[in-house]
Every structure is written in C-alpha cells, then in structure tokens.
C-alpha cells in the first residue's frame, strides 16, 4: 500500500539554520517548497499501525536542491528511510540573505500514521472556519512558491497517507531572525504556523492562488472563480460590491454568501441596499494567499448568510521584502502598489495601493486607496498573536443600466449611461482585529476580536422617471426622477473563538470542538429619492436605525471509528436579535387614502397621520428575536486509495432585512436545507499533482431573494429548489498550474416550477499558468518567465418573461518576466475585446425625459443591460528590495 506521509508541521515547524556564520547578522529568509514528495508508509510499519514522527535535518543548496539529509529524531529504520527518500526529491526556492540565495538547513518533521481517510489538522491555531486551508506543504514551505493544489493529493488530504497535512506554507515559515540555538555557522529561527481547515465534503474548496496569480484579476472577488460556479456582475460601478451568482443562487451583493477575511466578517448586516452586502474591494489582490469556498451550509462554523455557502479570504504575502509596483494602462488606469514583509517574520506584512481610472465608458471614473497591515507576535512556544488592520476608501461613478432600445436607436452608447448624474458614490471601511492562537497538549485554542466601521453612499437609477407618482398630499409635480440615494453606516463589534480537544480512540485521532461567533451591529440606513440633475432629495424611502445581534454557538466533532471512515459535523445554534427604529414609518410615497384637512401634511416625506386624520408619530420601533438550530454534517468514506466519497447535509439561515422586521415577527430568518454527494481525487502522477472533484447537490430555500430593479435591491420571493452538479480539477507540475471548473444547475420556484431568474445554468472557468526560468542568466541570476490565461463561459441566464441573456465568453491573459529584484508584467483583461452584456434585466423603466423629452413614458417591461468591460491592457513594473521576488 502506498501511503504518502506528509511533513506534519504547523507549529512544530522547522528551524532554519543558514550555513553562513551567525555573525552575519542579516536575516535569512527560509527556503520555500517548490515541489514535495510524500513518503511511502512502509508496509512493515503498517503491521504495527505505528504513529510516529521522523524529524529530518535537510540541507538545501543555494540552487534549491536537497544535498544532505540526516535523521534528527528517528522513527525506526524503515520510517527513517521512507522519509529520507521522499525528502531527497523535494525542491525549494533557496533561503535568501540580502537578496542572495544561500544554502540552509531546515528541519522537516514527517508524521507517519497508518492509512485513514480524511484530512486532518495537526496544529490548530486558527479556527477552521476561518482558514482557507492550504494543503500539505510542510512547514518549510515558505513564501514565494506554494505549488501544491489546494485540494491536494495524499499529503494534503491525508486520506491515503493517514497523516496530518501541513500548515499554511507562508505562515509556517520563519518568524524571527534571532538565533535560538548555537550551532556552528547556524541561525535557528522559531516558526509559527496556522491551522488547516478540515474539509467538510467535496464542496469545500480550499484554493491556493499560487501561480494562478498570473491570471489577471480585477479585484478580490475575482479570486472566487477558483471555486466552481461563480459568476460576478456589477451594475453599480467599480466601488460597488460584485453581484455574486453561485450554484443557482443570486447572492446579489453577498446576501446569500458569508464572506470573511481571516475570520473577520465582511457582510454588512442591516444594509438597506442588501442585507449582507459584501464589498471585498478593500482587499488588495496581491495579499490574497488563498481562499476557502465552502459551497453549501455544511460546517458548524458557518453563520448568517451562508446560504449558497461561505468564502473566507486568507491573507499573506509571498514576496518578502519591500515591493513597489506601478501599473499603467487603458483608460488612463494607474495603480501604485507597495507591499512589504520582513523575511524573518512571514506572518507580518503590509500593503497599500492607490488606484485611479477614467473608466471604459461614460461615468465609470473611480479612485480608491486601500491599506492592510498585519503584525504577528510569537507568544511562547506555540502561541501567536496577530494584529490586523485594514483601511479602505473609494469614490466612484456608476454608469448604471442601458436600455436595449436606447442602445439600438443610438440614443445611448453601449458603454454609455442612461443617467449621467450617478456620480460621487463612496465607500469606506476600517477594521481592526486581534487573533490569539495557542496549542496545548490536548487543546487548541483560538480567540479573535474584531471591530469594523463601514460607511457607504450609493447612487443608483434603475427606472429613470417612473416611480414618482403624484400623491394627493403632494403639490402637483411632474416626475422628478427615481435616483436612489442610499447612505449606510455600520459599527460592528464581535468575536469568535473555539477550543478543540483531541485525543485517541479506536487507535485513531479524534477531535471535538466547541466554539462561538458573536456580532453586534449598530446601523443606520437612509434612502432618499433625488431629483434628476440636482441630486436634491424629495422623498424618503427608508430611514432605519437598527441594533442587530447574532450570537452563535456550535459543536463540531471529528469522529473516526475506522481508518477509512470519518464523520465530521455537529450542530450550530444562532440567536438573532433585531431592534429596528423606523424614522419614517409611513412614507408619503405609499399615499394616504383619506387624509384630512386637520393635519396638513403637504409634501411631507414621512407622515404623522393615519387615515381619517388620526394622529400618529412618524416613527415606529419594532423588535424581535429568535433562534435557529442547525445540524450539519459530512460523512467521508475513503476505502480506495486517493479517493474520497463524501455525503454532506446541513441547514442554514439568512437573517432578514431590517426593513421586513415587524414587532414580534416569528423566525426573522429564512431556513435553507442543502445536501451534497461528491467524490474527490487527490494524487500524484509522476511529478504532477492532481486534484479533482465531482459534486451533485440540492438546496432548498424556504424564501428566496430575487432582485427587483424597481426597488433597486433584492426582495423576498417564494421558496425555491436548486439541483446541480459541480466539478473541478487542478493539476500542478514543475512548470505549470492548471485549474478548471464547471457548474450546471437548475433553480426553480417550488410553487410555480418556473426558473429562478438571473442565475446561470452553466458556468465554466479555466485558468492556466506556465512558468519557467529562461536559459539566460544575466549576472548569474535567472530570468523567470510566467504566462497566465483564464477563460470564463457563462451560459444563457434566464431572465424574467421567459427570455434569456446572451452567452458570456471572455478571456484574460498575462505574461511576465522577473529578474533579480525586477519584474515586468503585461496583462490583458477581455483579451479578444468581446462586447458582452454582463448583466441583463427585463423590467419597466422610463428614461425618455432625458433623451426623448416629448415622448410619453415607457411603462411596460423592456430589456436593459450593464456592459462588460472591453479589452483592458495594463503594464506593470515592480521592484523588490531586500527580499525574494
């Protein structure tokens, strides 16, 4: 039986000892794994079902190859030999000192365990729900290269080897340059690692960006496409959150997808534009180390909004040192980027960017600035404290939608705008979080606290001049314009944590975890209707001040009665609290049938009068609360080498928009039930690592959210069911990284059996990167060439009124050269300049007063669209000082 054994690292990370004298005080950047081979579990040890660790001391030459291996801690002759054979096949990016490659020695622990199915986390530091989980690259795996596919082979999942995978490479790298042992010509550094998240079935995608960073990505949301089924659209402008479609769900701007970054929530609770609105633009794409997408509510750690699933970004910086980058390209797009990360402290890094563009069409200008910093402090032998801060601000314009008939008649260009007044949108976010992680003999502990302040102003105009109907209490007027002028503020305080016990039963490692999530939000949402041209508000749609709370507690067991059988899961209970103060309980737009002439509320936006003149305060408070108990579990069966069969089932909830909260409302959330049946493969063919998954899924939502252009936001609809299939594959070799995924789904309403509009039935995505050193070595240093290509295909999306959208088929590509501290990159988004409609809608709108003033209003539904970006070419030049590149 071939049983790979992975270096079990995490906190028990290797020490790095440069062979140069310790007196050369410059810090050493530890080597990072380029290619690793898992040891074979020796049959002789299999008889005794040995669980043991072999610690090797490995010398990595300046060219990145292993030149010498010695056994530091023996596990027995056969196991030692298996580990040595494997270690000799590893290759590295060599250790660096002062920007030069140097030989180094590192310690690599190989943990051997008899075959057993599922992946396991050995060194818990961060709650598994927060981690994007890198596969099994041992501790020495370090910054710049992380070549193992996410759904990695045996070493990663452990199902074939039965060993614990390793920690996140970057996090496992050296953290301090200070020598901690005295050995001849050696520096030894303490290494701190992070937990890998345990997979919760075949729909759990833990994707490392790795070399696929070569594919041009506009923003952090684009990284979602590494997982199957994502379609991103955006009608609101470059600072507006992407509209996300996943597995038959129109998650709109995040309402059905729980977003977080290193565990800190991104979804806005109580945002009137969309409860759960998730703007990820504050994340600097270069700082995305990996992303974990769990499609479906199958992990007890998933909370509110995890309807279609959850996505957690894991930040990190591969390129250590100080990197500066300047980008210039189409439409006067400019970007300044600064990244820094000391080589001796891989958990510490920072980055900042400034971006501006004139945009590819009318009203698409944008500017933004973003900064992210993380400081990691080692605490004792196994503990870490990470302080993370982010700040982000953007100002942008929105082109909005274009009516098809206006485009065809030439009144509005394809990249034009119906309403050119949608200027001055803003969004900002600051956050501060602290995460403490420690490992004790039988417990792993984690505690995170976070504080977030969010603010946004959004101007949108979906309908033009349609909604401002004459009311009796209003002075006679023409249609003044339907521009939505939304402002949202939110202060979020919260935390999450867990304790995980691990012990042994049935001769196998067992785990039991208990944790919590707590979040309290103080929010204000106002939405006005503005007059066309002047942006003067004339009507109040909403004015809500809300206190929202979500307290969740969960237990999550990891039970392995047999070596090939694992049951993961538990139950989560969430308490939701809503206290909503409506400052405009009776907006005048709803009209009053029988106003009196006692209270003359002429032209008042918020009425203080009921029918027949009965006085009332214009405000009203509504409060309610309720709980949800949600069982979730995954059965993992792995009797066949390299294969895992999984069955996952779970329930989830989506809290309701505060605008729907009524006093004493029962169950102010929507229940979701979901099930998956999947199979995954992870293995190695020669030097190529392969991972593939196939999943059939079904999800039932008792109340769906459907986008209503008339309101400019999603509104509640009836229950719906989705049936579908998703598949993905990724192959990684010494010079390439290729990934592809596909999702087919049918989503129907249960009462009418009609298709759920807007969600694509078929989404295909392919990414490929090739990388290699060129044969020339100026000044003895290699020139690294990288090319990336990504392609997306989105099938025809059903639209209201039985129509279908166009097919979307676009390609992105880049080429780059890196030499010494310099690199140059040429990227093209929408390489073939496809003219496509990113979003399409059928609804009533009337923009005639702008472009055709004498014409009567258009009141029946018609096609409108948002244009996808044309070809955009960007040239970037970067330099890295004092580190690897």
């Amino acid at each position: 039986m071939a049983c790979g054994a992975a270096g079990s690292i995490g906190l028990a990370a290797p020490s790095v000892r440069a062979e140069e004298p310790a007196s050369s005080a410059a810090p050493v950047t530890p080597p990072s794994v380029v290619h690793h081979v898992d040891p074979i579990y020796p049959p002789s040890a299999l008889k005794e079902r040995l669980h043991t660790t072999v610690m090797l001391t490995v010398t990595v030459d300046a060219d990145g190859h292993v030149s010498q291996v010695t056994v530091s801690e023996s596990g027995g002759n056969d196991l030692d030999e298996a580990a040595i054979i494997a270690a000799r096949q590893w290759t590295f990016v060599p250790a660096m000192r002062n920007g030069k490659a140097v030989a180094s020695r590192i310690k690599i622990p190989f943990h051997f365990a008899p075959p057993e199915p599922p992946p396991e986390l050995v060194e818990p530091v961060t709650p598994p729900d927060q981690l994007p989980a890198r596969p099994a690259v041992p501790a020495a795996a370090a910054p710049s290269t992380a070549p193992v596919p996410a759904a990695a082979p045996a070493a990663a999942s452990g199902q074939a080897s039965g060993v614990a995978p390793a920690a996140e490479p970057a996090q496992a790298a050296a953290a301090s340059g200070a020598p901690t042992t005295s050995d001849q010509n050696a520096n030894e550094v303490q290494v701190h690692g992070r937990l890998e998240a345990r997979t919760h079935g075949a729909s759990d995608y833990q994707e490392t960006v790795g070399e696929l960073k070569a594919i041009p990505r506009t923003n952090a949301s684009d990284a979602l496409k590494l997982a199957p089924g994502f379609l991103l659209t955006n009608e609101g402008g470059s600072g507006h959150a992407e509209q996300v479609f996943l597995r038959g769900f129109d998650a709109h701007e995040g309402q059905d997808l729980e977003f977080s970054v290193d565990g800190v929530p991104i979804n806005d609770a109580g945002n009137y534009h969309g409860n759960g609105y998730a703007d990820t633009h504050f994340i600097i794409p270069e700082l995305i180390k990996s992303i974990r997408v769990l499609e479906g509510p199958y992990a007890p750690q998933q909370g509110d909004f995890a309807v279609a699933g959850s996505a957690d970004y894991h930040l990190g910086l591969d390129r250590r040192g100080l990197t500066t980058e300047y980008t210039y390209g189409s439409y006067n797009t400019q970007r300044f980027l600064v990244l820094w990360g000391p080589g001796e402290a891989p958990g510490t890094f920072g980055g900042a960017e400034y971006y501006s563009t004139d945009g590819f069409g009318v009203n698409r200008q944008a500017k933004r600035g973003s900064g992210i910093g993380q400081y990691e402090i080692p605490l004792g032998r196994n503990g870490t404290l990470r302080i993370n801060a982010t700040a982000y601000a953007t100002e942008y314009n929105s082109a909005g939608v274009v009516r098809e008939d206006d485009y065809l008649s030439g009144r509005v260009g394809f990249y034009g705008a119906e309403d050119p007044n949608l200027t001055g949108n803003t969004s900002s976010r600051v956050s501060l979080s602290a995460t403490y992680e420690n490992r004790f003999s039988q417990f792993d502990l984690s505690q995170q606290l976070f504080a977030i302040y969010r603010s946004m102003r959004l101007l949108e105009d979906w309908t033009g001049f349609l909604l401002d109907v004459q009311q009796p209490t209003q002075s006679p007027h023409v249609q003044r314009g339907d521009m939505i002028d939304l402002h949202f503020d939110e202060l979020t305080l919260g935390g999450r944590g867990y304790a995980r016990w691990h012990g042994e039963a049935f001769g196998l490692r067992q785990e039991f975890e208990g944790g919590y999530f707590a979040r309290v939000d103080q929010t204000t949402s106002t939405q006005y209707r503005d007059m066309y041209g002047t942006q003067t508000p004339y009507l109040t749609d909403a004015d809500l001040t809300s206190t929202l709370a979500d307290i969740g507690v969960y237990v999550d067991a990891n039970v392995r009665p047999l070596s090939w059988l694992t049951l993961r899961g538990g139950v989560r209970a969430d308490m939701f609290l809503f206290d909503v103060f409506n400052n405009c309980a009776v907006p005048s737009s709803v009209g009053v049938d029988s106003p009196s002439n006692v209270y003359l509320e002429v032209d008042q936006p918020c009425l203080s009068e009921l029918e027949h003149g009965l006085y009332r305060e214009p405000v009203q408070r509504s409060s309610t609360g309720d709980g949800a108990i949600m069982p979730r579990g995954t059965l993992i069966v792995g009797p066949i080498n390299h294969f895992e069969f999984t069955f996952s089932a779970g329930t989830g909830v989506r809290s309701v928009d505060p605008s729907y909260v009524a006093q004493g409302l029962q169950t102010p959330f929507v229940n979701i039930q979901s099930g998956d049946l999947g199979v995954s493969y992870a293995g190695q063919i020669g030097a190529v690592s392969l991972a593939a998954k196939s999943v059939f899924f079904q999800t039932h939502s008792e109340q769906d959210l459907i986008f209503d252009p008339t309101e400019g936001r999603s509104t509640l609809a009836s229950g719906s069911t989705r049936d579908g299939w998703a598949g993905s594959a990724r192959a990684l070799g010494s010079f390439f990284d290729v990934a592809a995924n596909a999702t087919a789904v049918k989503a129907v309403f249960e009462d009418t059996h009609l298709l759920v509009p807007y969600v694509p039935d078929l989404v295909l995505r392919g990414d490929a990167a090739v990388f290699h050193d060129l044969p020339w070595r100026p000044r003895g240093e290699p020139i690294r060439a990288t090319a990336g290509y990504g392609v997306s295909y989105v099938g025809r999306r059903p639209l209201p009124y039985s129509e279908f959208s166009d097919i979307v088929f676009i390609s992105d590509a880049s080429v780059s050269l890196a030499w010494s501290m310099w690199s140059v990159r040429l990227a093209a988004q929408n390489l073939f300049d496809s003219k496509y409609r990113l979003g399409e809608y059928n609804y009533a709108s009337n923009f005639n007063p702008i472009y055709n003033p004498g014409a009567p209003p258009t009141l029946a539904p018609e096609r409108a669209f948002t244009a996808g970006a044309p070809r955009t070419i960007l040239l970037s030049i970067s330099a890295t000082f004092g580190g690897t590149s």
Partner: protein
Amino acid sequence: MSRWPFAVAFLGLLAAACNGTTGDALYTFPAYASGAHGAGEPFSANGYTIQLTFAQLYVGAVYVNEAPAGSGGTFNTPVCIDPGVYCAQVPSGTEVNLLDSAPQPWQSPSPQGNGSADLGLSWEIYLGCGDVNNSTNMCPNNTVDLQGTATRESDGKVFTFAATVNINQSNDGLPSQDPGQPGLNPICKRRILELGGISLTLFEGALMTLTIDPRAWFNVGQGIDFSTLPSVASPQCQIDSTSNYGDADYCIPDATNLSGSMLGAQQGENLYEGIFTGGSAAYSLAYTSAL
C-alpha cells in the same frame, strides 16, 4: 471505476438546466389606428344632425393595464401611473384621421408596441405627450381638430363649426378644493382616458388596432348646443394659436366651464367630457393576428 454514471448524470442535469422558463413572455407588435365605419356620415345628437368634414385625434400613447377598471391603480385615485401593472404599450404618438376607417399605421417605426403576455383588463389612451403632468401639452399636434356642420333639427338652421382641443393646465386644469390634498386633481387625470372592458393577452405575430368613433363624443353627457357657440373671430376661439377652423363660422372654445362666463365655455367643457367619457362607444382596442 466507471465514469459513465457521472457522465450520464451530468448530461441529464445539463439538459434539465437548459429547459424551463421564468414564465410569461415579451412581444413586440405593430400598431394601427383608424376611424370608425360611417364616422363621416351624418348622425343625430342632442337635437342636431351633425356632419363631420374633418376629424383628427392625436393619440399620445396607448397602455394596457393588468388592473381591471375601477379596481384602483390609475382609476379613481390621483395616481396616474401605477408602476408595475402595464403589460402592453405603444409609447409614441400618432395622428389619426377619424373619418377614415382604413387602418392607419402608427406614425413611428415598427414595431411600435411591446409588452408582456400578462392578461390586460383595462387600457389607457394618453391625450398628451411627454410627462402627463406637464402643465403644457408637449405634443407636436393639436390633440383634437374637428370641422363640420350641425343642422338644428327643429328649424333646419345650419351651423358650420370647428373645434381644437389641447389639454393644458390653463384651460382644463381642475384645482383641488382641499388644501391638505393639493395633488388631488392633477392635470394627468384630465389627459388619460381610462377604459375597461377588455381581456387582452399579447401573443406572437399579432397587431394592435385602435378604433375611434368621434360621433360618440357628441352623444354622451349634455352634448353640444351649437347655437351658443362664439364666432371664430371672437377671443374665445383664439385660445389655441394652432387652431385650424377652415371655413367654419363658429368654434367650440378650448375651455372648460371653470373659465367663468366665457361664451361657449360650457360647450367646450361638454366636448371635452364627450371625448373623455366616450367610453366603449368611442374607443375600442383589438389585438388580432391580422387586420
């Protein structure tokens, strides 16, 4: 392991995903308008035998409404537009020769109409252009132009008359009597003819025809007393600068009875009421597969 089951399941799912609809459908259609058969023939109304020699109506737009007449929506409320209830529209204007019963293509590029396959139960004719609450009509033509003769049946006296109608705030607006409801009588309520009595669903390959019979304008309400009309040279006949009175001796003033004691104002109001309340006798809408 055989991969066939997965492949078959995937293809089956893909096929299923490609089927189905979201319900309903969108259609476009050509639109026509015509006068009624016999509209150019003499007819009797209110003690007069009337012979129209010229009759034109400028239709600003036509909308079909999912709400039944009288159920609310745009009916019986100050709300003139109730977003979300319109299933068909011809959102452009056309000049209709009311004395010609042959279908006249709408005066805009085809297809002039569009809408969804929802059931329409009522419909609206806009007697104005642009925003229906504009104080001044933005149509390029007069809304109504009439010329003809009226012979008093009691004594055989003949009155050659003409009329022009444009619905503006100045001549047709009705102020609200309730200071708490200044928007109770917006001008849009005077410009939109609201009609019921249809059960119309769009389908592929059909066309819409609007038929108007101006004779009905004279047969509802109080009718016109042609003997009280002012002569075309009088100021009451100069309200519309675009009036075309031809050889007429008298005009029906484009004014309402709210215009005080203006000579003929009552007749102007009566004509407006005839146009406005002509109902199914004056207006009909058909959606058919052929003319």
